[in-house]
């Protein structure tokens, strides 16, 4: 379109420069510039004027009468510009003349500039050559080149490798979220071959617990919970999605497929049940079922949340900032936010009071043959009844809403709904046959309609692949994981790095935009991003290359020289000590005391809850404490009620599952101490642990203390430590406490040590 513009005639040029431009500068451009983009509108370039802002094109070239800008300056419509004062008639005439002539402007002002498009994160990653290093013998793989070069440039040396026991404990906790068993440790310590570590890593990557550990990391992003949130906070069935994530990770599903199935599994040709379950990802948004609400409002909230989550999880962009106005720092306009919104706005969810009974639809029902037969028959009958009601209303349009016969039919439908045969269901995505018309929400308020928008991606990023139909959610998913996308791969490897070192290469893991932090090692970030894609998006390969590096294997002990030169340890001249995540504190205690249930997957479970912990919610929910092995399942299976999350999780910084969480905080509070010291569950662990220590009747106190250390910290106590534990034991015996009680005290000490809840 721009190519066929006539060249600018001299008189047009003079007209623009002498008449139009000064007028725009004095009256319009303060707000409507490429930079400020008030209401999404810039009057700075011909392209931006014809494209227009949130209310649509500002000008129809050649036609002043049909141009919004002219209407606005004339003050004839609802929109009056500039605000507060009308232009003089002769000024308006200039603008009309300009529109009539077809908006002549000099060549430099034809196309929109996208300020910020040159930002590093929007450029495709490049594989740099490995930097040269002096201490080449330290290097184990390419990661180490990048890290060591920087360490050396700061005149530092890397730390020595951590002790072998520490190393196995670290890599076990990082890869499967469980400490090694004494047997695994012994085997590892006895295996002196050079490939012993790699063998251990491969064993861990193949463990079914790998999927559990990394599923939990992903579930934070997915804001997974077992209840609806908001006011009523009723239970919801979506644990099958959680299990889908575990399985996908255990099978090392390529990350691109992992993304596509979760965002748009339902739109794949002939989707499998698993692919439908995967779409639970974006159904984890809180949903409001309170009386008297406007369902559309909370549906809109959920869609906006999906945009924000997609932005943070894959793009590392704060798209949410553009919901009410154009992004203040990054080249993302409010219009682009709603174009993105349009991809996610077509799910067949409840948007009006009349459909209240179908709350939380769409579902996928999954049962055995018999159950499905019953369920399908029920569903068919429901559709028949609903159709009959619709037909009746159409025939008796004058009867009104209170027509007794219609009400009777409605009651019949309600009764039928209550008779739904028992079958396992899970929340999924299902597209409406006809997409909703998306529009810009002026000021972020969905009741204030701006111009209509169609699905589209931010212009600063690569374009969508061309298709011969309107783009949909599947196109969005495929676009996210396209090879030329500069962000998804970088953001994903950065988040993995963050798990293995405590901080990402980009510290602001959810903001790769212009106010986010710059990468400390940009070439390493790109190398990892490229490597990730080259290895067919294998997450296991990514994790392996990181844990095999010398960088990862360093000791985490504090060093005076590192502290002085690099107080935040951004150069990684040593590893970091990291407190375990909430679930892992529990899991480690379960393993140590021997109560651990290794079962993978299934409905969420109910470990003991401190008395009174769920009395603060509007609707009291029964907590039926699990018995048998389900009492001792991993933390990730604990039923998560949004309005009263299990304190054992939330006090150790598990996210509250309201919005996406891409990084957990690690706090250190007295309430954590109370939990580990006094909570019923942890005391039960300590008692079981004491029993285990006392199992061997013949051994000495010293041997038992050593066993206790091995089980909790995976190492032998120093003589000083052993002496201190003996001192406690002696005090207990002095107080005439029985042996079980005395050893329970010892167990409580071990389960409360900082080192126990830390990955060193």
């Amino acid at each position, binding site marked *: 379109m721009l190519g066929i513009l006539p060249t600018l005639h001299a008189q047009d040029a003079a007209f623009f420069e002498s008449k139009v431009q000064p007028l725009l500068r004095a009256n319009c451009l303060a707000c409507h510039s490429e930079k400020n983009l008030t209401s999404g509108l810039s009057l700075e370039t011909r392209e931006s004027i014809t494209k227009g802002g949130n209310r649509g094109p500002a000008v129809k070239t050649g036609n002043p009468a049909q141009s919004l800008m002219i209407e606005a300056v004339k003050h004839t419509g609802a929109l009056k510009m500039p605000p507060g004062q009308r232009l003089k008639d002769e000024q308006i005439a200039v603008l009309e003349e300009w529109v009539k002539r077809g908006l002549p402007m000099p060549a430099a002002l034809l196309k929109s500039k996208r300020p910020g498009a040159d930002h590093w994160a929007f450029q495709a990653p490049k594989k740099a050559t490995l930097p040269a290093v002096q201490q080449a013998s330290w290097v184990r793989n390419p990661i180490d080149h990048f890290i060591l070069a920087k360490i050396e440039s700061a005149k530092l040396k890397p730390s020595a490798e951590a002790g072998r026991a520490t190393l196995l404990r670290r890599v076990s906790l990082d890869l499967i979220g469980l400490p090694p068993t004494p047997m695994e440790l012994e085997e590892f310590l006895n295996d002196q071959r050079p490939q012993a570590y790699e063998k251990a890593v491969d064993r861990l990557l193949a463990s079914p617990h790998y999927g559990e550990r990394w599923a939990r990391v992903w579930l934070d992003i997915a804001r997974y919970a077992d209840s609806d*949130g908001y006011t009523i906070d009723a239970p919801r069935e979506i644990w099958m999605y959680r299990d889908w994530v575990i399985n996908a990770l255990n099978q090392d599903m390529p990350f691109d497929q992992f993304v596509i199935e979760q965002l748009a599994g339902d739109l794949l040709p002939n989707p499998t049940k698993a692919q439908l379950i995967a779409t639970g990802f974006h159904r984890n948004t809180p949903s409001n079922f309170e009386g008297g609400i406007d369902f559309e409002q909370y549906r809109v909230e959920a869609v906006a949340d999906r945009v924000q989550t997609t932005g943070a999880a894959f793009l590392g962009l704060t798209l949410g900032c553009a919901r009410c106005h154009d992004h203040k720092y990054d080249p993302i306009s409010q219009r682009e936010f709603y174009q993105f919104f349009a991809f996610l706005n077509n799910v067949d969810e409840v948007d009006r009071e009349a459909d209240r009974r179908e709350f939380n639809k769409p579902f996928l029902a999954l049962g055995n043959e018999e159950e499905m037969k019953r369920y399908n028959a029920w569903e068919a009958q429901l559709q028949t009844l609903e159709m009959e009601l619709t037909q009746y209303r159409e025939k008796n349009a004058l009867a009104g809403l209170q027509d007794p016969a219609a009400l009777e039919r409605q009651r019949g439908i309600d009764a039928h709904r209550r008779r739904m045969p028992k079958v396992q269901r899970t929340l999924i995505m299902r597209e409406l046959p006809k997409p909703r018309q998306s529009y810009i929400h002026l000021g972020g308020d969905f009741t204030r309609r701006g111009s209509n928008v169609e699905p589209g991606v931010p212009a600063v990023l690569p374009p969508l692949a061309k298709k011969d139909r309107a783009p949909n959610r599947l196109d969005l998913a495929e676009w996210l994981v396209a090879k030329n996308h500069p962000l998804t791969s970088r953001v994903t490897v950065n988040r993995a790095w963050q798990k293995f070192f405590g901080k990402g290469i980009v510290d602001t893991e959810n903001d790769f935009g212009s106010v986010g932090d710059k990468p400390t090692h940009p070439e390493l970030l790109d190398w990892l991003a490229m490597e990730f894609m080259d290895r067919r998006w294998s997450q296991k390969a990514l994790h392996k290359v990181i844990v095999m590096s010398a960088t990862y294997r360093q000791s985490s002990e504090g060093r005076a020289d590192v*502290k002085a030169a690099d107080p935040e340890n951004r150069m990684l001249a040593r590893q970091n000590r990291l407190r375990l995540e909430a679930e892992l504190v529990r899991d480690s205690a379960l393993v140590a005391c021997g109560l651990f249930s290794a079962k993978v997957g299934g409905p969420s479970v109910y470990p003991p809850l401190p008395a009174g912990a769920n009395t603060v919610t*509007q609707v009291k929910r029964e907590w039926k404490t699990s018995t048998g092995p389900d009492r001792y399942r991993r933390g990730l299976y604990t039923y998560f009620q949004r309005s009263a999350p299990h304190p054992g999780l939330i006090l150790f910084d598990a996210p509250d599952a309201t919005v996406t969480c891409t990084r957990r905080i690690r*706090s250190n509070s007295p*309430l954590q101490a109370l939990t580990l010291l006094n909570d019923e569950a942890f005391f039960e662990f300590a008692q079981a642990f004491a029993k285990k220590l006392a199992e061997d009747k013949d051994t000495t106190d010293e041997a038992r203390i050593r066993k206790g250390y091995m089980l909790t910290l995976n190492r032998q106590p120093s003589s000083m*430590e052993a002496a201190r534990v003996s001192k406690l034991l002696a*005090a207990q015996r002095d107080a005439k*406490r029985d042996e079980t009680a005395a050893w329970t005290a010892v167990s409580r000490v071990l389960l409360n040590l900082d080192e126990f809840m830390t990955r060193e």
Partner: protein
Amino acid sequence: MTFDDKLTLARTRRQLFRDCGVGVGKMALATLLGEQAFGARHHPAKIEHVIYLFMAGGPSHLEMLDYKPELVKWDAKPTPDSMLKGKRFAFMDSFAKETPKLLGTRRKFTQHGRNGTWFSDLLPHMAGVADDVTVLQGVSTENFNHGPAKLFSNTGSFRPGRPAIGSWVTYGIGSESKDMPGYVVLQSGPRGPRGGASLWGSGFLPTAYQGIPFLSVGDPILDLSTPKGVGNEEQRQTLDAIRDLNKVRYEATADEEILTRISQYEMAYRMQSSGPELIDLSKESDATKALYGVEAGKPSYANNCLLARRLVERGVRFVQLYHTDWDHHDDITKPLDKVSREIDQPTAALITDLKQRGLLDKTLVIWGGEFGRTPMGEVREKGKIGRNHHIDAYSLVMAGGGINHGITVGGTDELGFSPSEQIEVHDVHATILHLLGINHLKLTYRFQGRDFRLTDIKGRLIDKLLA
């Protein structure tokens, strides 16, 4: 060598280590010694504590505090279209079916205090402290459903996931309490408030700043009691061993996080003795108990008001009480009588008691709900009449330091429908922070690329309120 000898040796080593130029754990040590890690206020504070009495459900301003004789005159008349046009209400369908009728209050209002502040007969005790309180009229909020509106009152956003005001305050200026959390939540009434933990959650702030619910049954704080069969002596011995062994680890790793952990375990121990002492009301005089209307052994709003005073005495920064059951759609008569009786005396008693102990000057007491109720009546059941949710104008009551007393700030039109001057929730928040010495524009936290604040993009100080 005994353990203690070895530890002394290790300490000496640490001394050496430190002298080599490692500034070991300054912050963590400060915490250990109980020094203030915070305290940097933007301007001198007028108050040190906040007690926020949250009436969950939406008390009717028109029955309690906002006297509208004109509305009584218009009683049972159809609501003019101008009041309904373009407005969104909760339960739209019930208003859509037929034009709602205006409802004049049946309550008797009288004037109290030197400036003649209006109170209805539902609040005789609060009327008695008229000169100590200020009534805010025409406060407006942004969402007409309970859960979201409560979130808005508490976090400045109707979306879950933002930090509560108490979290912002303790994040900003810490707390003086050495043996209690800085932000405590108490609850009374037939059920918990809608939204539950998200109302006092710390959102994206560290979880150390979340509100800690004190329970009225069992342990006041979860897991506060030692496990069954474990005595205090044993608990102390266990803690000593944990501390000593953690110190050993600190010597090896120089990780200051361990020092923080040691101090947190000590704090936990102190909480174990101070918690039961806190909730033991038996030492309070009979006169005090009678003032509040406390009944021994019976959890109630009155108990919680007395507990709030005790918490403030112990340096707790932000105390929030929830009292539920204010959602009077069906019937604005007897159910409202009942819940008003539950809160009137204890609320007035709290103000009186704080005053006589010299605490009122450094405490701000706020009373109010998430929204008010419509001047239009709502009929859900034949023969009964209630009111719907109203977000454009409702009443709050404040008492305490740094504010003017005995006056009314703001106002509403003749029917109690629209405010005559704008006072928004963000303005209330800005003003609370201001009294605490915090500039609401400067207390920010960067999350997902944006500097968030309690007052979002709004918030003006309520000048007429400030002394």
